[in-house]
């Protein structure tokens, strides 16, 4: 565990130093461009007092330069025109960039921190919901499959139910696999899609996240149920009833409760061992979820959110702010990785006698 934590620590330090260096380079290169421009014109002294809108001032400047550098009237005329053009450029750029150019200041960092807290809040909520959803749907699918084995397959009722279920499942798959922006744009005319609640909901149901990891969890349950110790437990008469109305069967209440236990049932062991294996995929799931949330915020242009801000600052080439936002996102992934590693370590101690 210590090695893992050390690796996380060095990774955080490495990326932080790398991005701070980049920040330094970005800042110095933009300063260098401004200084170079200023240095070229500073050879002619401080011209701050000259009103370039006033034609008398312009003529006076031309005369002064001619007096200083006689015998080069043509060059002097070019220089004056250059100074004028530079002043105009500076002025128009100031107006154009007044609402897009932002510098990384204390206030900006504070604003970014607010957005980050909002991002974290949505992330934690969606992560908890998907963690619950993945396990619940996986268990439900597994139990239903076991129950189906008990039903009479050739009856017309069974076949029509299966057909209806297949249609419903396919429709659900289409929704669950839709990228967030497809779902959001499909219902944008009827609902307000810019709320945090909608964003969290979209994070859970879209981008294929829930289905992909539910399927993984189901695969873990299936693989575990085929192991020898399960057969031994069944032979030794441990409860193995799955029917809803069967004595000792698994009820919906047990499937849907947040902290699942199936005391005295063989499925309890299947579930616990599958959950242990699932924990190792949570890191991957978290990274996928963060990607999904970033896609949602960016694609739907949700103002005042971290990822939208990243996109906006990229567009306006405020790279120092971009670097800070990327650093925030990286810390979120790393934080999750450390948390999951600690969780796995705790479980390892329990199951593998470490």
């Amino acid at each position: 565990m210590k090695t893992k934590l050390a690796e996380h620590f060095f990774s955080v330090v490495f990326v932080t130093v790398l991005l701070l260096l980049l920040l330094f380079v970005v800042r110095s290169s933009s300063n260098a461009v401004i200084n170079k421009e200023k240095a070229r014109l500073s050879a002619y002294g401080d011209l701050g007092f000259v009103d370039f809108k006033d034609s008398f001032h312009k003529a006076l400047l031309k005369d002064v330069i001619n007096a200083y550098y006689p015998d080069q009237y043509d060059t002097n005329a070019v220089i004056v025109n250059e100074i004028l053009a530079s002043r105009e450029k500076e002025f128009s750029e100031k107006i154009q960039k007044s609402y897009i150019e932002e510098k990384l200041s204390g206030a900006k960092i504070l604003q970014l921190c607010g957005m980050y807290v909002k991002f974290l809040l949505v992330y934690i909520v969606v992560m908890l919901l998907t963690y619950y959803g993945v396990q619940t749907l996986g268990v439900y699918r597994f139990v239903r499959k076991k129950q189906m084995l008990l039903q009479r397959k050739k009856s017309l009722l069974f076949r029509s139910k299966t057909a209806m279920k297949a249609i419903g499942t396919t429709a659900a798959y289409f929704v669950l696999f839709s990228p967030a922006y497809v779902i959001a744009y499909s219902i944008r005319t009827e609902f307000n899609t810019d709320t945090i609640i909608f964003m969290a909901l979209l994070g859970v149901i879209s981008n294929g996240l829930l289905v992909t990891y539910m399927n993984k969890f189901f695969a873990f349950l299936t693989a575990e149920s085929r192991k020898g110790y399960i057969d031994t437990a069944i032979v030794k008469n441990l409860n193995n009833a799955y029917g809803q109305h069967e004595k000792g069967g698994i009820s919906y209440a047990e499937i849907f409760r947040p902290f699942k236990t199936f005391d005295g049932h063989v499925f309890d062991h299947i579930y616990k061992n599958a959950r242990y294996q699932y924990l190792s995929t949570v890191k991957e799931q978290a990274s996928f979820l963060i990607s999904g949330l970033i896609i949602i915020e960016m694609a739907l242009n949700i103002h005042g959110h971290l990822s939208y801000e990243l996109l906006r600052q990229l567009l306006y080439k405020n790279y120092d702010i971009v670097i800070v936002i990327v650093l925030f996102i990286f810390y979120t992934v790393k934080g999750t990785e450390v948390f999951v590693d600690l969780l796995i370590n705790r479980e390892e101690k329990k199951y593998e006698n470490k």
Partner: protein
Amino acid sequence: MDASVLKQKDSRWAMILILGLLVTGVWDALFLNKPALRFVVSGFFNTICVALLVVVFTLIFAWIVTLVLNYLESHNRRASYMLVTFLLNTIRSVPQVVGILFGYIAVGIMLQNGIIRGALPVFPLLAVSISVFVFIEFVDLMRERIAHYKKLDFYNAMQVCGISESRIINIDILWKNSRIHIFNKLISVFGAAIFLQCSVDFIISVGLSTDVNATALPATMGSMLANIDSKQDVLAIGYALTHPLYVGNLFFEHLQGLTVAFLIVFLLVCTFHIANGYAQRHRL
């Protein structure tokens, strides 16, 4: 056609995919205007082309990195091994979409500055920027397979027989005994490539179109969906939800956006089921 083929989930979904694409193509040929049809077709093929390139690059990167890690591990180069692992884990910690977004921006800037010209080098570059953030899962799979077989007797037996380690790993473990696992993962990578590509293209077209010239990058289904006509078409779905009588119009008047949205989702669903069915058939 042999009915038993359709009983297998992967074959069935592969058939559904082909049939679905054919039906969509015929419907669009009949009811979608020709410029839009050309636009949709080029976007679809560009997306598929980049996704296939991602699959190829992912396989190449993963295979090389796996061999490098295996070499470093078996030759006790602990420092180098830890450095490579550290770098891989650091890439893993960057959310895929963020990494790919920066990759796409870099390609867009290269195109604008004339460093690269034409579509030919653009496709591989876009594919590389996706592969870099996808191939690490593949490395994990290959290393798991190698570690599993190294524990078995046949690995030591083959070494005793004088067979080189590279042959055992490349041919006997990865090719002969893991190609089904590798192929299954490649199907998933194809799906992930489509999803990531469409999402990043959509984001760039919606949010960065003035910074990275969206027209400089080849049109894909993501950028097509961000097109104003397509967005209007997708928005019409919402209208149809509350005005059910309007549903019929969607398939004639809003075909461009509907086709693009359907193709993205349909490809993702089919790829998932094919990979899932393939894993079930081979009991992976």
